C-alpha cells in the first residue's frame, strides 16, 4: 500500500475533521474533486495542521486572528478585539510568515505582513497552518511558516442556500448569506456578509488614577464582503475555476489606554484568482493568474498596493516513487503609498521533487530562486524526509526531519518610505532544521496521537527600524536564534452515540537575540519582545447525537515589552464554553443553534501592553441550510 503524506490527505480527502494530519495508508480519490496539486504538497519533513471545520463554524464572522489565538498554539499580537493582529510563528516577527489565498500570496507588499483581524472566518472554506521555515516551497516571507486559506468548489450538489447569523455581546451581529448551485460540470457559489461589533466593552483603565472601570470608546468595527466562486469541468481532463473576494473593513482604532486618539482606518481588499488545470495520466498542468489590490486608509493617509501574479507549473507523476513540480511565478507590484510610489517585478523559478524509495520513507526536495527588480534574493533549497519506522495493527510511529533556507525580501516601505527608506537593504535570511516524532494509537473506538517537533533556526539580516536623527530608518541589523518545541495531541473516544474528543497543543518558543545593536545595548541573550515562551491550548468536545458541547482554554505566558526584558505583560488564561444543537425541521431544512460564553472567568487581561481586551462575553450562532 502506498503511504501518502498527510499533505495528500489534506488536499484529497474531504470531510476529514482531523486537527492533526496524520499519514494514513490509503486515500480515496474522488475524481470530480481533483484539483491542481496544492502548494504544500512537497513538504515531507514538516507539519501541516488543518483548522478543524467545527472551529471555523464556531468562529463564523469573527476574524481568523481570534480563531488562531483561541484554538491553536500560535500567538497573535492583538491590539484589541477586532484590531490589528499580526502572527508570530516560531518566534519570528510579524512579517516572517507567508499567507496565501487560493495559492496566491496576500501579504501586503508595502507592510510585508497580513492583518489577521481583517481576514474574516467565512471568507474561505479551509485554513491550513504550515509550521516551519518553508521559503523554498512558498517564496518570500515563509521564515517561520505559512498559512493557506482556500476555497473549495463542489460539484453535483444542486441548489444550496445557507444563512449564518451570529449575535453577541458589545453589539456583535455577523450575518452571512450564501447560495450555491452545482451540477456535474459547473459549480457556482456566491456569498455576502456583514460583520459588526460596537466593541464598547468594559475594562479597567490602568492609565487613569485609581484604574477605574470604563467603557471602551472608539473601537467600532464594521465589515462588508462578497465572494464569488465559479468552476467548470471542461470535459474529463480540464478544469477552469475562479474566485473573487471583495472585503471592506471600517474601523475606529481602539486607542491605547490613556490615549484620547480617535483614529479611523478603512481597509479595502480585492483578491481574484483564475486557475486553469489540465490533467493527463501523468501530469497536472496549472496556469494561475491573480490580482491582489489592497488599500489602507488611516485617517487621511491613503496607501494602495497592487499585485498582478501569473504562474504556471507542471506537476509530474514520473513514477509511483517519483513526483516533480517545475514552475515559474511572476509578480508585478505597484505601490502608491502616502509618502512614495514604487513598482517592482518579481520572478521566481522553482522545482520540487517528492521521492518515495520504499513504502514507508518519503523525501521532499525544493529549490527556489527569486529575482526582484534585478536583484537576486538568497537561493533557497530545502530537503525533508518522513519515515514510518514502526507499524502494527494498533500503533504507528513515524519521524520526520527537514533542513531549509528561507528569506524575506525587504518590504516596499523598508526600501522606499520617505523619509528613511533604505534602498540598500538586503533580504532577511534564515536557516532552519527540525525533527519530529509522531505516535498514533488506534483501537476500535479509541484513538490518541501525539506529535513532538523540535526546531532550531537562525535568522540574520533581521530588519529593524531605528531612530536616525529626525526620522527612523531600517537596517539589516539583528541576528536571532529561534529554538523551540511544538507538541500536538489528539484523543478521540466514541461510545455508541457519544463522542469525546480532545485537541491540544503546547508551544515552547525561545527567540534569543544574538547581538547588541550598540555598545550600551543590553539585549544580547534576551527574548524578543512580545514573543511568549509558553503557549498552551486545549479543546475538549463532547458530542451526543445532535448535541455538542465544548470547553476551550488557552494560556499565554509573559510577553516582554522591549528587548531589555525588564517590563512584561502578565500571563493570562482564558476559558470558553459552548453548546450547540443540530435540528432538522423538514427534510430539506437543516439548522443548528449554538451558544458560547467566552472568557467565562471574566479575566482582566491584555495581549499587548495597555491594549484593553473584553471580559466575559456571549455569542449565539444560528445557521440554516436550505
Amino acid at each position, binding site marked *: 500500500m502506498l503511504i501518502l503524506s498527510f499533505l495528500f490527505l489534506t488536499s484529497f480527502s474531504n470531510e476529514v475533521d482531523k486537527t492533526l494530519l496524520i499519514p494514513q495508508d490509503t486515500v480515496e480519490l474522488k475524481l470530480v474533486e481533483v484539483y491542481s496539486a496544492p502548494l504544500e504538497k512537497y513538504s515531507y519533513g514538516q507539519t501541516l495542521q488543518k483548522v478543524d471545520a467545527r472551529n471555523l463554524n464556531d468562529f463564523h464572522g469573527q476574524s481568523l486572528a481570534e480563531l488562531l489565538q483561541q484554538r491553536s498554539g500560535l500567538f497573535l499580537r492583538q491590539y484589541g478585539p477586532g484590531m490589528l493582529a499580526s502572527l508570530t510563528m516560531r518566534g519570528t516577527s510579524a512579517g516572517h510568515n507567508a499567507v496565501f489565498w487560493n495559492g496566491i500570496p496576500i501579504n501586503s507588499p508595502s507592510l510585508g505582513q497580513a492583518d489577521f483581524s481583517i481576514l474574516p472566518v467565512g471568507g474561505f472554506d479551509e485554513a491550513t497552518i504550515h509550521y516551519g521555515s518553508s521559503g523554498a516551497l512558498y517564496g518570500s516571507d515563509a521564515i517561520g511558516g505559512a498559512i493557506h486559506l482556500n476555497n473549495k468548489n463542489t460539484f453535483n450538489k444542486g441548489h444550496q442556500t445557507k444563512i449564518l447569523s451570529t449575535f453577541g455581546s458589545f453589539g456583535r451581529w455577523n450575518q452571512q448569506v450564501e447560495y450555491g448551485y452545482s451540477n456535474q460540470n459547473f459549480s457556482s457559489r456566491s456569498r455576502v456578509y456583514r460583520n459588526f461589533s460596537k466593541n464598547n466593552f468594559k475594562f479597567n483603565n490602568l492609565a487613569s488614577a485609581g484604574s477605574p472601570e470604563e467603557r471602551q470608546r472608539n473601537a467600532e468595527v464594521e465589515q462588508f464582503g462578497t465572494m464569488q466562486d465559479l468552476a467548470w469541468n471542461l470535459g474529463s481532463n480540464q478544469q477552469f475555476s475562479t474566485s473573487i473576494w471583495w472585503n471592506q473593513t471600517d474601523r475606529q482604532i481602539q486607542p491605547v489606554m490613556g490615549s484620547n486618539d480617535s483614529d479611523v482606518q478603512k481597509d479595502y481588499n480585492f483578491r481574484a484568482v483564475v486557475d486553469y488545470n489540465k490533467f493527463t495520466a501523468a501530469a497536472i498542468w496549472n496556469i494561475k493568474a491573480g490580482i491582489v489590490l489592497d488599500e489602507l486608509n488611516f485617517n487621511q493617509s491613503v496607501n494602495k498596493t497592487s499585485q498582478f501574479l501569473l504562474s504556471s507549473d507542471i506537476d509530474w507523476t514520473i513514477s509511483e516513487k517519483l513526483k516533480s513540480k517545475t514552475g515559474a511565478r511572476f509578480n508585478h507590484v505597484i505601490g502608491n503609498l502616502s509618502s512614495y510610489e514604487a513598482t517592482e517585478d518579481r520572478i521566481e523559478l522553482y522545482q520540487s521533487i517528492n521521492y518515495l524509495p520504499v513504502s514507508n520513507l518519503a523525501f521532499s526536495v525544493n529549490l527556489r530562486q527569486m529575482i526582484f527588480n534585478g536583484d537576486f534574493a538568497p537561493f533557497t533549497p530545502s530537503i525533508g524526509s518522513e519515515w514510518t519506522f514502526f507499524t502494527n495493527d494498533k500503533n504507528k510511529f513515524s519521524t520526520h526531519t527537514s533542513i531549509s533556507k528561507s528569506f524575506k525580501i525587504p518590504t516596499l516601505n523598508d526600501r522606499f518610505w520617505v523619509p528613511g527608506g533604505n534602498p540598500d537593504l538586503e533580504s532577511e535570511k534564515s536557516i532552519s532544521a527540525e525533527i519530529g516524532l509522531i505516535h498514533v494509537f488506534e483501537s476500535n473506538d479509541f484513538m490518541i496521537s501525539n506529535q513532538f517537533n523540535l526546531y532550531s533556526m537562525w535568522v540574520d539580516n533581521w530588519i529593524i527600524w531605528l531612530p536616525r*536623527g529626525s526620522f527612523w530608518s531600517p537596517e539589516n541589523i539583528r541576528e536571532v536564534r529561534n529554538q523551540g518545541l511544538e507538541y500536538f495531541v489528539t484523543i478521540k473516544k466514541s461510545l455508541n452515540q457519544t463522542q469525546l474528543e480532545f485537541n491540544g497543543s503546547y508551544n515552547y518558543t525561545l527567540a534569543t537575540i544574538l547581538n547588541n545593536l550598540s555598545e550600551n545595548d543590553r539585549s544580547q541573550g534576551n527574548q524578543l519582545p512580545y514573543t511568549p515562551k509558553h503557549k498552551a491550548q486545549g479543546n475538549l468536545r463532547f458530542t451526543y447525537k445532535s448535541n455538542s458541547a465544548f470547553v476551550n482554554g488557552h494560556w499565554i505566558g509573559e510577553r516582554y515589552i522591549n528587548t531589555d526584558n525588564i517590563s512584561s505583560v502578565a500571563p493570562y488564561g482564558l476559558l470558553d464554553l459552548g453548546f450547540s444543537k443540530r435540528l432538522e425541521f423538514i427534510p430539506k431544512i437543516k439548522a443548528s443553534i449554538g451558544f458560547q460564553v467566552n472568557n467565562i472567568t471574566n479575566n482582566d487581561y491584555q495581549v499587548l501592553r495597555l491594549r484593553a481586551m473584553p471580559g466575559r462575553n456571549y455569542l449565539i450562532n444560528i445557521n440554516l441550510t436550505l
Partner: protein
Amino acid sequence: MKNLRLLGYLLALSLFIYSCDSNSNEAPLGEYEKGLLIINEGNFSSRDGDISHYNFNTGDVQQNIFEKVNNRPFAGLVQSLIENEDKFYIVSNTGKVEIVNKNTFQSLGSVEGDELNIPRSATIANSKIYISDWGPYDANFASPNSFIAIVNNTLGGEIAKKAKTSSRPESFHQINNDLLIACSAARTIDVMRIGVDTVGRSIEVTGTPVRFLENGGKLFLFARNSSAVFFHEINKTDYSITNTTEINIPNPTSKLTLGENGEAYVITSTGWPDYNDAVAKISITSGQVLNASLYEGNGFYGIGFDDFDKNIYVSENNGFQGSGTAIVINQSGTEVKTIATGVGPSGFLFKR
C-alpha cells in the same frame, strides 16, 4: 570609600530613628528624596514612560518607580517632570498629568480626559496648574489650536479653562505675576497675566524657542536653528529682547544643560546619513564654542549636569529597542561610568 558608605548607613539610620520619633512633625525620609531621577520618555507604541531612581551612595538603580509605588503603569510618554513644593507633576505628552508626592512618588491626583491632547509642560501659580498643550494636530501635522489648560486645584481634577496660545507652547517661566511661555512653532514668547489667564501679547524671536534659563542673574530664552543656538536675554520688566548671543554650531538639538560659569553643554546630531551625535561645550557669556565634540556617540537623547561633582550625564536611547543608558562623563570628556535607565531616557533631575 568603605568608610564613606558606613557613614552613609549610620546617617541613614540616625535619620530613620529621628524620623520615627512619634512626637516629631518631621515627615519620614522619602525613598526618592535624594538621588538622581531619570526621566524615561518611553516607547510610543507601548507607552512605557516612567522615572528611574539612581542612588548615588549605593549605585543601585530602580526602574519604573511610578509603577512600583502605585501598582499601575504610568501608561504614557513622559514629556517633563515639574517640581513644585512637595509634589512632582509628571507631564505625559499622550494626554495627562500625574501628580505625585515628590519624595515617595505616591500618586496624589491627576489631570486627564479628552480635554488634554499633547501636554508639554506645567507650572503652578496662584494655586492653579497651568498646562501647556500643543492641541490636536491638523491634517498637515501642524498645531494651530494650541492652548494652556488651567486647573483650579494643585492636586488635579477638571480643567476649568483653556486659553489659546501661539502654536506649540513648551515651557513656562514665572515672573512679575506673569507667565512667559516659549512657543516653538510660532517662534514667540507668549505673555499671560496670572489671574487674567489669557495670552496678552506675543514677542517674536529668532530661532525655535526651547526653554527659559537663568544665568548670572539674567533671564534668557534658549532657541536654536540648524546651524546656531541663540540665547535671547529678556528684559525682566517689559520682556523685550535686550540682547542675543548667537553661537554658531552645526546641528544643535534642543537638549541643553547649564554648567558652571556661564557654560552650557548641548547635544549636536549630524542626522542623515551619518547620525553622529556629540556633546558640545559652549560659553553663553563669551558666545564661543569651547569644545565642539567633548564626547561622541549615537542615540543621544538627553543631557544633565551634576553641580556636586561637575560631571555631565548624557543619555542614550538604544534605538528605542529596549532600555537606554546614562553615560557619565567628566569635564575632560572621559567616561566615568554608565547607569542603566528605562526606555528613551530624556532628562535628569539631581537631588543631592
